[in-house]
């Protein structure tokens, strides 16, 4: 099978300029394979929502190509394949939960009886069944997010586009939502995720693209991308009291408080040397954790001011 046939989404030289001259997309290209769990990350205003809008038919593209399972984005065929979970709540707040789902299924041409059964299944899976007769406006923030997911899944889309689906959602709800979405992915649904919770993207996604100022800065495999981290900082919990002088701590370590040290190690440099040094000083390590998650570190480096300078200097993009 050719690469094109396996692609759930292919974007080629996509451009979009909003009225007023704001360039949202400046010729981006990337593709998402069928069955992928793909992260599209970027800071606010980077062009993520514009990209997702074009893919789902809500934004008119300037130029370039966007194809969904081989169909032109915005076409009837492409829309039939996509389920969109938007960033903002966009259902009628006066409608009842079940009606919102059944109506959405109706717009996709599904028979009402089938839609009722499908809505029951989804509402039960997402823990909203008890709220099926409640108006949209009476739901909590987390429930509204779940409702958006259920609505996007009513027509059993092959590609699920999630634009910050867990914004403002509590930890427990977020976890249950991810479990549900991971199950969908394992069952074959291709997922494109945009989120500001980078640890979620790191854990869930197989491939990643980073976008900023309308250009793709990275488009690669998540594992390969994380390997590009040059230095990592670890936080060590020490049983004994540590003192902030050269004799009381290993070289390069920073004392955070009496029982906590921070050490920064370069890529490829193990923690063994640090542990041995601590052992020699009679210090016992009770726990060790990364100070910042790797994706966050890379993301900030690429999209922050330093990252921009580096990109301008070299002109290189990370690409798989």
């Amino acid at each position: 099978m050719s690469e094109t046939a396996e692609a759930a989404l292919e974007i080629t030289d996509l451009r979009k300029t909003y009225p007023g001259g704001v360039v949202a997309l400046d010729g981006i290209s990337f593709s998402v394979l069928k069955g992928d769990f793909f992260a599209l990350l970027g800071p606010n205003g980077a062009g993520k929502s514009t990209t997702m809008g074009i893919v789902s038919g809500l934004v008119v593209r300037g130029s370039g190509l966007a194809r969904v399972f081989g169909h032109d984005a915005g076409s009837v065929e492409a829309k039939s394949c996509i389920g969109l979970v938007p960033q903002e709540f966009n259902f009628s707040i006066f409608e009842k939960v079940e009606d919102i789902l059944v109506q959405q299924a109706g717009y996709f041409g599904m028979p009402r009886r089938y839609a009722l059964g499908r809505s029951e299944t989804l509402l039960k899976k997402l823990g909203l069944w008890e709220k099926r007769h409640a108006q949209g406006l009476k739901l909590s923030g987390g429930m509204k997010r779940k409702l958006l997911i259920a609505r996007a899944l009513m027509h059993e889309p092959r590609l699920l586009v999630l634009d910050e689906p867990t914004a403002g959602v509590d930890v427990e709800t977020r976890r249950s939502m991810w479990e549900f979405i991971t199950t969908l992915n394992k069952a074959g649904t291709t997922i494109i995720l945009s989120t500001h919770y980078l640890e979620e993207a790191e854990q869930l996604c197989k491939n990643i693209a980073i976008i900023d100022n309308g250009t793709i800065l990275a488009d690669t495999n998540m594992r390969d991308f994380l390997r590009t981290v040059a230095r990592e900082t670890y936080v060590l919990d020490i049983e004994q009291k540590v003192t902030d002088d050269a004799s009381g701590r290993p070289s390069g370590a920073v004392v955070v408080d009496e029982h906590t040290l921070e050490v920064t190690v370069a890529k490829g440099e193990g923690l063994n040397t640090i542990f041995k040094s601590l052992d020699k000083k009679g210090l016992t390590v009770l726990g060790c954790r990364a100070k910042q998650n790797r994706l966050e570190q890379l993301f900030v480096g690429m999209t922050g001011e330093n990252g921009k300078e580096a990109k301008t200097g070299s002109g290189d993009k990370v690409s798989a």
Partner: protein
Amino acid sequence: MRAAQQWRAFLTLLGKEVGRVFRIWTQTLLPSAITMTLYFVIFGSFIGDRIQDMQGHSYVAFIVPGLIMMAVLTNSYANVSSSFFGNKFQKSIEELLVSPMPSWLIVAGYTAGGMARGLIVGAIVTAISLFFVPLQVHAWSVIVVFVVLTSAVFSLAGLLNGIYARKFDDVSIVPTFVLTPLTYLGGVFYSVTLLPLVWQQISRLNPILYMVNGFRYGFLGISDVPVAGGLMILITLCLGLLVLDVYLIEKGVRLKS
């Protein structure tokens, strides 16, 4: 989308629109019923008897078709403009825009919803009129054609308003400053033949005159302007607005970034 799927999608949108009409019936059905009852009481009972017959019919009998038509067109227009703009405002219009429904089907669904409200209100006002004047029918076919086409024209016009509206004020400006004056000057309460010649000529530029006139012809068999000409104007307006609405939705004007 296959034809059966399109039919289901159409029924879904129509069902949602009709459901909205009944859910907020105090805003959609009741006001016209009360307003028209007042017209019938005032012009039928209080001062109607003091006004001489119009073209062989009592004054109240003369104004009944115009009042029914007024209710039909204002309700058809208001339903689509407010519902569509409300969906735009809440962004729930995106439910339709991400669906595989073609633009013409979206237009058809909203238009049918507006027509449904217009015709329901028209039926209510007709029922109320029976308390004041017996029903006369000259030609059922003319009544049906004119009322259906008029409700379609004003539903399509309401959709146009909803598409272009940016704020709630924009939805009320057209009914207040365009629709109401044209309706009152469209021969609802008088025969244009009573006007000086120059005003008769000016009145002929008002499309609502032809709708009211044709509808009245269907009930009473009297006419100030050619009925066939009115029918042609209605069909032209209907097709023109239909094409324009479908084009605007297809292009995503004021709907897509």
